[in-house]
């Protein structure tokens, strides 16, 4: 019921959603983060901490399952180089009722942003830079602990 995947392969949205829907679910909420094509980025590269990343994602998914009444929690994160328009991350939560699915989905992505060891590097033309962490992400994650 918990599925964690960190891979260089493109994210198979339809396949992942089909896995989640395969159970007796009433509600599936999902979130996809994509490489934005509108701010001049030619390539985004995702670095991660092998082992620790998967453990962190597994912990986040288990926290969601403990907190809400879920039938499935999925976190799929791509690593390596990717192009504008491609999917970086997919999280999904399935539940008998929609409020659990919606809240758990928001939790999964908010937590992932601050608690999982990934680092983004953007390339624009000849220039590469590491993306800075944003305070708004810390705030979004912290609202779940209040």
């Amino acid at each position, binding site marked *: 019921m918990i599925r964690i995947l960190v891979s260089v392969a493109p994210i198979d949205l339809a396949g992942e959603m089909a896995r989640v829907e395969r159970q007796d679910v009433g509600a599936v909420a999902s979130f996809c983060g994509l490489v934005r094509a509108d701010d001049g980025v030619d390539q985004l590269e995702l670095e991660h*901490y092998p082992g*620790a990343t998967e453990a962190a994602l597994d912990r986040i998914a288990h926290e969601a399952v403990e907190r809400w009444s879920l039938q499935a929690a999925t976190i799929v994160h791509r690593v390596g180089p990717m192009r504008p328009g491609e999917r970086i991350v997919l999280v999904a939560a399935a539940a008998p009722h929609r409020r659990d699915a919606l809240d758990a989905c928001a939790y999964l992505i908010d937590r992932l942003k601050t608690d*999982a*060891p990934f*680092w*983004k590097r953007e390339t624009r033309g000849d220039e590469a830079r590491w993306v800075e962490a944003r305070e708004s992400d810390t705030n979004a994650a912290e609202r779940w602990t209040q």
Partner: protein
Amino acid sequence: MTLTILYFAWVRERIGEAEETVTLPSHVVTVADLVAWLSARGGGYSEAMAAPERLRAAIDQNFVGLDAAIGGAREVAIFPPVTGG
């Protein structure tokens, strides 16, 4: 005591390697001590460790504050704040 140190993102780039194994001197007790000790090597190390408040760390794959004691850990990772998702 032998310890594997992992570097990620711009910490890795500035140091110029992703991983090394070191024998810690006895005065290196916390991650902050380790950062100071590495920084004293100069060059890419001091560049990478110039602003400890911008660094994050994990001990044996668990996130910790820089004041955490390394104890008998096998692996310490030093990296910038995470930016996934």
